[in-house]
């Protein structure tokens, strides 16, 4: 990798001065890819094929092995700069992306709306161009407006990774949910997965739907009829309004957070009624399959989407999702970095 020779990056210095010695070497050109990729940006799972999705999942598994479960660091992104552009509040996702980038040896820059010049009247695109001009290779973008990362991808040379665009998509969350299911069940094809809750306002639901359907799962979306638009059937899913009716058929249930902040007016009469109709509790767990996997993208509202005993119970894989998120984000960053290197005429 010609681009890396000679320059001492901050990551190097950190390693040298840090306690952990011996950054494990895994060059971008040596990424163990099981299938095709070829994408400069990761904007959504709708645009990916089943083969590309599998490439990401397999790479995440390789990285899990290479880093002893995500705890050791690699040199894959050494010399690259990853900017986190967060125009919407997020602690979990941003932390996960920052950690993923650093585990791969990249430098990271955090940029959040509160510290931005948006309040000074600068357009979103100008802000992004300014940050890119500082020598950024990959931009991780979270924004409250659907399509904002797509807009960026048309104006920037850097690779753009969608970290959630409003109510549209959240591809890495979709991938980590699918990865978590695959790690526990060994496959996706043939499984029945229920997405429960506010489907209308959920980017997590859309990314899960696109990914799961392509990989051969049966997907049921379930929630209050005001929050489950029936047109969504055209994406290849089934629509249900009664959780208890579908529960016995379900292998995995993904409990989406009620998006109080995205709703325009009241979509259901009360939280108590929601919890009664759609909350996962011990009683429902008893009536479900014994090996039911309970996922929740979080942050969870305990007592609303699920009761604490379910969240902390044996069926819950919620914390696995968090650690798998790191692996998935490492995989996605590596894949986009690889394309960027190839595209910019560097070592291929």
């Amino acid at each position, binding site marked *: 990798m010609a681009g890396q020779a000679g320059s001492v990056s901050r990551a190097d210095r950190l390693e040298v001065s840090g306690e952990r010695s011996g950054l494990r070497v895994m060059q971008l050109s040596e990424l163990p890819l099981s299938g095709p990729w070829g994408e400069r940006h990761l904007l959504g799972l709708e645009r990916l094929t089943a083969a590309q999705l599998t490439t990401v999942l397999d790479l995440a598994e390789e990285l899990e092995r290479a880093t002893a479960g995500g705890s050791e660091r690699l040199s894959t992104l050494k010399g690259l700069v990853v900017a986190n552009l967060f125009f919407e509040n997020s602690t979990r996702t941003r932390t996960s992306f920052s950690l993923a980038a650093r585990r791969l040896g990249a430098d990271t820059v955090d940029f959040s709306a509160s510290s931005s010049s948006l309040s000074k009247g600068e*357009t979103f695109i100008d802000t992004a161009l300014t940050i890119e001009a500082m020598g950024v290779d990959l931009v991780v973008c979270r924004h409250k407006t659907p399509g904002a990362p797509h807009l960026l991808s048309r104006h920037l040379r850097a690779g753009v990774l969608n970290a959630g665009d409003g109510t*549209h998509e959240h591809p890495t969350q979709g991938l980590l949910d699918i990865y978590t299911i695959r790690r526990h069940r060994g496959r996706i094809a043939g499984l029945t997965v229920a997405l429960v809750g506010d489907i209308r306002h959920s980017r997590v639901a859309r990314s899960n739907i696109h990914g799961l359907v392509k990989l051969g799962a049966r997907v049921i979306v379930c929630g209050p009829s005001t929050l489950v638009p029936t*047109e969504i059937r055209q994406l290849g899913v089934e629509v249900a309004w009664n959780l208890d009716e579908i529960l016995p058929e379900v292998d995995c249930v993904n409990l989406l957070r009620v998006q109080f902040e995205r709703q*325009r007016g009241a979509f259901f009469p009360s939280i108590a009624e929601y919890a009664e109709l759609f909350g996962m509790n011990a009683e429902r767990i008893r009536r479900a399959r014994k090996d039911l996997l309970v996922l929740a993208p979080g942050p969870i509202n305990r007592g609303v989407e699920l009761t604490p005993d379910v969240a902390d119970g044996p069926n819950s894989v919620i914390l696995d999702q968090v650690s798998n998120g790191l692996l998935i984000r490492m995989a996605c960053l590596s894949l986009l970095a690889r394309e960027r290197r190839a595209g910019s005429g560097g070592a291929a």
Partner: protein
Amino acid sequence: MSEVWIRGGRVLDPASETDALADVWVRGGRIAAVVAPGTVPADAAPGVPVLDAAGLLVCPGFVDLHVSLREPGCEEDECVLTGTAAALAGGFTTICAQSDASPVVDNRSAAEFIRLQAERARQCRVYPLGAVTKQHRGEELAEIGQLVQGGAVGFSDAMHPVANAEVMRRALEYTRMFRRPVLHFAMVPELAEQGVMHEGFQSTRLGLRGIPAAAQDIMTGRDIALAELTGGRVHLMCVSTRDSVARIRQARATGLAVSCDVAPHHLLLTDEVMDRFDPMYKCNPPLRSREHVDALIAGLRDGTISAISADHQPRAQEKKQVELDQAPFGICGLETALSVCVQALIRPGHLTWLQLIARLTKGPADVLGLPCGTLEVGQAADITLIDPQAEWTVDAGRFASRSRNTPFDGQTLPAVVKTVLVDGVVRLSR
């Protein structure tokens, strides 16, 4: 001066249902004769300048019922000078200036200012529209009588629906005595609130907030009922839905004074383009799905929709280079209107040329009773010459308009406006 012999073109005059090769003679800025090719009228002066129209369509100049000129107050988007230049570039010789300047055109002097600026610009004809309610607030009627004195030919609150039915009722009653229609943007505000696109499968897929067709249908139904109640005249701007067209068709069949227009982009584009998340496609009403587009075309064919309006809504570049929900609605439409209509209506064979030209000339002129839109002898010689075979590639950077917010930039479209005359004087030639 202003004498011309327009020779050898295909004359399309919807008022007389003429579609034939003919020569048009202009004298003193007015139509003097429309005669068989090569026939020289007995009273023709020698040496009249000839405009060779071989291979071209010779039509009345186009008429647009509502053009947002943005002056005064929003000159970063457009001004009367650039807006009228854009009109000429698109083949329009008469436009009605929408009342959405800042301050709002809700008083006599504001209307007179538009006319004064148009005189200074010396391009196409401009008639002001007055506001229905003060400051477009939908609460109190504007000084409608004073506005008529100031030259207002119709009344509109632009993109602001008159949501209160009682206020709309009084407006329709009051405008009756001036024999002027209310041009209404029929939309139930609470159903459209914060929407950025048509509500349906595509909005669900993209996670974008939708504006349901019902938001327009409900208000269209209300306006028809109020037209019946009051005997007033209501013109619905930019119909975009199947059921609105059906309701207007039925109302017209029962003899109510209800008319409507449609915008060219609603005839060519569907909501599927929104997956580009490009604010250039963001307009209100939003781009609808296929079944609505088909119903609009059927409405144009049977005359339910008697007018096409470019729905010219220029917006400065910086306003559109933002996130989709931040960007204002609107498409800069005058300069592409004809070509988009030809692509959507003529190429697939939905309309004849005579039908299309009628919707761009006599149809809108009749809504307001304006003395234009025909090639009748004695009329002002406002004439547009079109090359129907030519194609051009849209370059927004070369628009006459001050704004560039078009979704058609870079596209190759059919039909070129070659020459435009106003009062017999060539104002545009390319």
